[in-house]
């Protein structure tokens, strides 16, 4: 008991009784309440970039990080787990675009788009999100090329859509021309063409690349030369079969 506190006997019995009864009533009331309903919420429409900037009080990057975490946890709402396929991908792409607009240096939105959201087994949604990746890749190709390369992989191996993979690979080779972009990424188009059976085109492109002198790494030269030899062998075999 503190010095400025009196004994419990000074508290009227009625006050103690009301305290106990009201606590019991609260517990009883809560136990009779229906449980909070579990309802899956859909992603809201993305807010405008200007509004988000104003709402972030100048902390655009912090707002982008917060938005990204919110977006990432949207599939795990209180008491329910939503499959990614249940998300509205047009809105999802809109939110990812806002995050990138607030924080253009961030890799997180494109990583999530190409490695997480693009893994859903719904072709239309995969296509939509990969198109978003391509659109954003073109804004800063020399920094964002890894996500475009991932888009090529998803189109080729997950969606089994070779023409789409070729389209993304061409986009990669046309736009990502910086010195820091590795040659394997720039030349993904060759490998896609090879897989599509377009051996002549692959051979021409690969031969041209080796002749250009741009490949200076001996290991890379060896790997690409072997690859060219393999393509030539397959090409000759195809000709012979005809």
């Amino acid at each position, binding site marked *: 008991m503190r*010095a*400025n*506190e*009196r*004994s*419990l006997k*000074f*508290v*009227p019995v009625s*006050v*103690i009784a*009301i*305290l106990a009864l*009201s*606590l019991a*009533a*609260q*517990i009883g*009331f*809560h*136990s009779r*309440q229906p449980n*909070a309903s*579990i309802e899956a919420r859909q992603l809201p429409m993305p*807010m*405008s970039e*200007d*509004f988000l900037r104003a709402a972030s009080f100048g902390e655009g990057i912090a707002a982008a990080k917060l938005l990204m975490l919110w977006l990432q946890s949207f599939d*795990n709402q*209180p*008491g*329910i*787990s939503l499959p990614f396929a249940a998300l509205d991908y047009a809105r999802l792409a809109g939110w990812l675009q806002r995050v990138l607009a607030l924080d253009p240096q961030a890799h997180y939105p494109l990583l999530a788009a190409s490695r997480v959201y693009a893994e859903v087994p719904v072709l239309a949604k995969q296509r939509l999100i990969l198109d978003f990746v391509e659109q954003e890749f073109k804004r800063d190709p020399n920094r964002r090329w890894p996500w475009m390369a991932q888009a090529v992989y998803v189109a080729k191996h997950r969606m089994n859509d070779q023409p789409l993979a070729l389209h993304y690979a061409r986009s990669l080779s046309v736009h990502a021309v910086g010195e820091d972009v590795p040659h394997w990424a720039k030349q993904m188009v060759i490998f896609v063409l090879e897989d599509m059976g377009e051996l002549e085109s692959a051979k021409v492109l690969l031969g041209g690349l080796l002749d250009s002198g741009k490949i200076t790494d001996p290991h890379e030269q060896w790997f690409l030369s072997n690859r060219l030899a393999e393509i030539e062998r397959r090409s000759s075999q195809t000709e012979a079969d005809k």
Partner: protein
Amino acid sequence: MKVSNTLAVTAFTWLEIKRARLRWLAVGMLLLGLGIGEFAATIAITETAQHRLVFFAASMRLATVFVIALFVATSVMREFEDRRVELVLSRPISRGDWYLGKLLGYAAAVAGMALLISLPVIAQAQLPGLIWCYSLMLELGIVVAGALAFAVTLRQITIALSLVVGFYILSRSIAGIALISRAPTVDLSLPSNQVVAWMVDALAFVLPDLSRFTQAEWLIGTLPTQIDLVLLTAQSLIYVVFLAALGLFDLYRREF
């Protein structure tokens, strides 16, 4: 306890509220809220009226709770520090009279403030606006009872205010927290997760679920049923009585 004594304290509380010019603060908040709503409406491409209403309602709900909690806590603490409570209690007025008088005075003030704040909402959506206003009064009643009880019990303005804010945030989010603690992604076979879920459940039993109160959704979508309103009223009454008893318990033990 004498009703006349309680009403006398209520009248003095009213006088204090009048002198504090709380109504002008409410008018200022109202104008700010209208500005926020109008700003949201200008940004929205569609559903502008809904944006205006929802932004106004949500921002006013929070602002009113904050202002009321601040006002009640500081007012009570000042009364203790100025030893006005001792002066009043030296008269033939019981501690219960003083406490209930203060509670009634503040409750009447928040009812007036809630009505003033709700005028634009009622003007735009009459029945939903009135229901929203009624629910705001109930919610503010709990906040007033909490601020009064915590100020009397803790006797430190910073701690009392922090506790009111924490109590309010926790009460608004406890239903969601309880759901998350038992979400399918939580492995409830682990003892640590079981303890956390149990603690959250226990907390939910003794806190009012304020997420069911004063929802902006009522203004643009589904109205609460009559049973919902009865349950909200019952929850408010139970919790205000509980908090009042808690405050009174400590007040009766206090040595002046």
